[in-house]
C-alpha cells in the first residue's frame, strides 16, 4: 500500500525499483503537497482529455495523416517534467502531444497544429509529429533518430557548462535501433549529462517486446551506463526517479538510463485498432487497476488532500478548456498559400523557390 507525504508522511513506491550498476536508487520518502497533487492531476487530466478529443477529431477526419496518442502514459510526461527544470532540455519521438503540453505549449496550439491551421504551434506545417517549443525539440518521426540528437543536446549543455541536463526519450521498439547504442557509447565516453529514458509500453507498433528484443531488460541495455527501472504509471515514482537521475547527471558522473514501465490504451496510431496483437481484457485490466489519473485521484481523496467535489470541478474546467481549444482548432483558417515556401532556411535573405512547373516562381522568406 502506498502512502503519500503531506508534511511528514512517507511515500513508498508500489513496485520495487530495479537497479543496474547502481548502489542506491531514488529515495523511498518524498513530499507531495496539496498544490503539487492538484497540479499533477490537472495536467494529467488535461492531457487525457486532449488526446481523447484528438481521437474524436481524427474520426471526423478533421485531423489527418498520423496521430499517435498518449493516453495511459500521462504519468511519465508529468512526472518527468516535475523532476526537471524548465531550463533543462527534452526530446522525444512521435508520441509527443503530452510532452508538447508539459513543455509549455497550450492545448489550443496543439490541437490547431493537429488540424493543420495557422494557429498551430508549427503554423500548420509540422503536424502531429513535428511540434516544437523552447527547450523541447520535438516530435521526431524517424524511430530512434531522436536519441543521438538528445546526446547532442547534452553535449551542448556540457560544452556551455550551464548545469542543464537533457532528457532523451525513446520507446521499447526504438530500443533495438543501432544509433541508440552508438549514442550510449559516446555519452558514456564523454560523460554527457544525458538522461536516456525508455518508455516501455510493451508493444512496438504491433510487435510485443518478447518478439522484438533478445533482452527485455531495457534499463540494462546501456551496459556500462547505470540504469534503473520504475513503475511509469505512478506520477510520484516517476518524479522521484527523474530527480534522482537528474542529480546524477548534474554531478558530472555521466549519462544514466531509466526504464518506465507504462501502457498505452490506444493502438500504435489512429489507423491501428490496437486489438489484433493484444486482448481487450489486458487493456481493460490496466485501465481499471493502474490508470495513472485514477490512482492519483484515489490517493489524494483517501489522504484528505482533496475532496471529490474539488476534483469534479477541475474536471469540468478542463472539459471546457478542451472544448474551447477544439472550437478554435476547427474554426481557425488554414495557413495562407503565400507562406508555402517560408522557413526553408533560417536567417536567410528572401529567395525564389521553384513551384510545380518552370513558370511557377514562389517566394520564400526566413
Amino acid at each position, binding site marked *: 500500500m502506498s502512502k503519500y507525504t503531506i508534511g511528514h508522511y512517507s511515500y513508498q513506491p508500489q513496485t520495487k525499483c530495479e537497479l543496474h550498476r547502481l548502489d542506491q536508487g531514488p529515495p523511498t520518502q518524498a513530499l507531495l503537497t496539496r498544490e503539487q497533487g492538484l497540479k499533477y492531476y490537472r495536467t494529467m487530466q488535461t492531457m487525457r482529455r486532449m488526446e481523447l478529443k484528438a481521437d474524436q477529431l481524427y474520426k471526423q477526419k478533421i485531423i489527418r*495523416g498520423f496521430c499517435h496518442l498518449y493516453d495511459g502514459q500521462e504519468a511519465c510526461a508529468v512526472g518527468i517534467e516535475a523532476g526537471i527544470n524548465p531550463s533543462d532540455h527534452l526530446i522525444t519521438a512521435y508520441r509527443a502531444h503530452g510532452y508538447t503540453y508539459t513543455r509549455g505549449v497550450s492545448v489550443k496550439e496543439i490541437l490547431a497544429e493537429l488540424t*493543420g491551421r495557422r494557429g498551430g504551434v508549427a503554423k500548420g506545417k509540422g503536424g502531429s509529429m513535428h511540434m516544437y517549443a523552447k527547450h523541447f525539440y520535438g516530435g521526431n518521426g*524517424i524511430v530512434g533518430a531522436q536519441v543521438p540528437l538528445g546526446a547532442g543536446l547534452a553535449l551542448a549543455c556540457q560544452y556551455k557548462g550551464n548545469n542543464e541536463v537533457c532528457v532523451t526519450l525513446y520507446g521499447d521498439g526504438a530500443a533495438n535501433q543501432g544509433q541508440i547504442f552508438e549514442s550510449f557509447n559516446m555519452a558514456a565516453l564523454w560523460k554527457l549529462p544525458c538522461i536516456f529514458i525508455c518508455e516501455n509500453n510493451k508493444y512496438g507498433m504491433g510487435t510485443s517486446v518478447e518478439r522484438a528484443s533478445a533482452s527485455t531488460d531495457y534499463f540494462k541495455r546501456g551496459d556500462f551506463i547505470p540504469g534503473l527501472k520504475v513503475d511509469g504509471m505512478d506520477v510520484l515514482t516517476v518524479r522521484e526517479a527523474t530527480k534522482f537521475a537528474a542529480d546524477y547527471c548534474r554531478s558530472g558522473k555521466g549519462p544514466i538510463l531509466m526504464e518506465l514501465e507504462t501502457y498505452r490504451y490506444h493502438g500504435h496510431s489512429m489507423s491501428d485498432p490496437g486489438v489484433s496483437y493484444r486482448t481487450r481484457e489486458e487493456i481493460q485490466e490496466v485501465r481499471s487497476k493502474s490508470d495513472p489519473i485514477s490512482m492519483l485521484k484515489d490517493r489524494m481523496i483517501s489522504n484528505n488532500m482533496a475532496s471529490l467535489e474539488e476534483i469534479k470541478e477541475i474536471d469540468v474546467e478542463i472539459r471546457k478548456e478542451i472544448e474551447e481549444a477544439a472550437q478554435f482548432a476547427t474554426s481557425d483558417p488554414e495557413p495562407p498559400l503565400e507562406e*508555402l515556401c517560408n522557413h526553408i532556411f533560417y536567417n536567410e535573405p528572401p529567395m525564389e523557390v521553384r513551384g*510545380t512547373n*518552370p513558370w511557377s516562381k514562389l517566394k520564400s522568406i526566413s
Partner: protein
Amino acid sequence: MDKIRNEQIRGTVKVEQFGDKAREARLRWFGRVLRRNRGYIGQRMLEMELPGRRRRGRPQRRFMDVVKVDMEMVGVKVEEAVDRARWRQMIHCDFQLLQVTVRDALNQAMDEELERDERVFLLGEEVAQYDGAYKVSRGLWKKYGDKRIIDTPISEMGFAGIAVGAAMAGLRPICEFMTFNFSMQAIDQVINSAAKTCYMSAGLQAVPIVFRGPNGASAGVAAQHSQCFAAWYGHCPGLKVVSPWNSEDARGLLKSAIRDDNPVVVLENELMYGVAFEVSEQGLSKDFTIPIGKAKVERPGNHVTLVSHSRMVGHCLDAAAVLAKEGIECEVINLRTIRPLDVETIEASVVKTNHLITVEGGWPQFGVGAEICARIMEGPAFNYLDAPVIRVTGVDIPMPYAKILEDNSTPQIKDIIFSVKKTLNM
C-alpha cells in the same frame, strides 16, 4: 442471400462472356483456314458465291460478314493471320472484368513467387503477424509461416544488411521498408553492400535481392514521411529501380524483380494501394512478368508527350482526357522503370509529337525529369523538339502538413494542363 454479380463469378472461375468467346473461336478458325494452302476447301468456301437468283428480303448474313465485323472489333487485318502466334494473341479475348487493387496485385505476386521458389522469403517490420503495415503481405504468414515471412525489430540498417547477406549466400530475400523514408537508415547496405558487389567482385558474387515499400507523398504524413527516392536510387549503377503505377505494373514488375538476379528497388505508392484496375487474364497468369527497363505507352497521341511514373501517370491520363476535349491529343508514357531508363520509347514519341513534358512527384533538382531532359538533349530526338522540355515536379520544399499546403506541394492535374498549353503556345 448473398448477392454476387455475374462479373465476379466469371472472374473467379475465369470465364469470359459468351459472345466474346464465340468471337475468339470464329477468328481462330478463320486464321487457321487462311494459313492452309491454296485450294483448301475451307478457303474456297469463304469466297464462294452460289449461282442462281436470291430470294426476296434481306441478304443472308454469311460467315465472312460476321468475321469482318469481328476483325474490326478486335483490330486485326487479314494479312496478320499469317503469323499464328501473333494472331492468337491479338484475337484472344480478355475477360477484363476482374478488378484487382494494387495491394492485392502485390500480394498475389509475392504469394506466387514464394510458392514457385523456395529460396524466396520476405522480411521487414510488421510483415508477418500484423499482415503488413499497409496490409500488402496479408495472409502470407498464415500460409508460409515463420521461416518464410519474418517480423524484424525496428532495426533497418541491421535487417537490410541481414537480407543482403542472405542474398549473397544464395537465398532470394524480399526486404520490405515500411516506407522508403526509413530506407535512409539502411541506404549504405542497399548501395554499398548490394548494388556495388557484383561489380567489385568482377561478377563472382551476385546479390539477388528485392527492396520494396511505399515511396513518395502520402496524405498528411508531413515532411519526414513524404520523400520520393526515385532520383536517389536511380542515380546508382548496379541497382535496378522500378516504379509501378497500376495493378498490372505492380504484379509484373514485382515478379520480374524477384526473378532478377540483381538488386532491385521497387518503389510502390501508398495512395495507389487501394486503387483497383482491370487486369487482363494474361496479367493474372502465374508467369506474367513485365520486362524491367521497358516503358509503356498508356495512351497514344500526336501533339505532346507526357512522361511519368507511379501515381502521376494517373494524373497525366486525367489531364489528357480533359485536353482531348479541346482537341489536344497527349501521348502518355508510363516509365515503369526508372533505372535502366527506356529512352528509346521517349525518343520515338518525341519524334512524333515534337513536345515533351515530364511529370513526377519528387523534387526538381537532380530529379527523374532532369535526367530525361539531359538524355533527350544528348540523343537524336533533340532535333525534333519544337520547344524546351518542361519538367512538372513537386515544389522544392519539405512536405508541409496542412491540407491546403500539401495539396499545393505536388503536381495537380491543372499544372499538367497548364504546362501542355504553355508548351503548345496556347
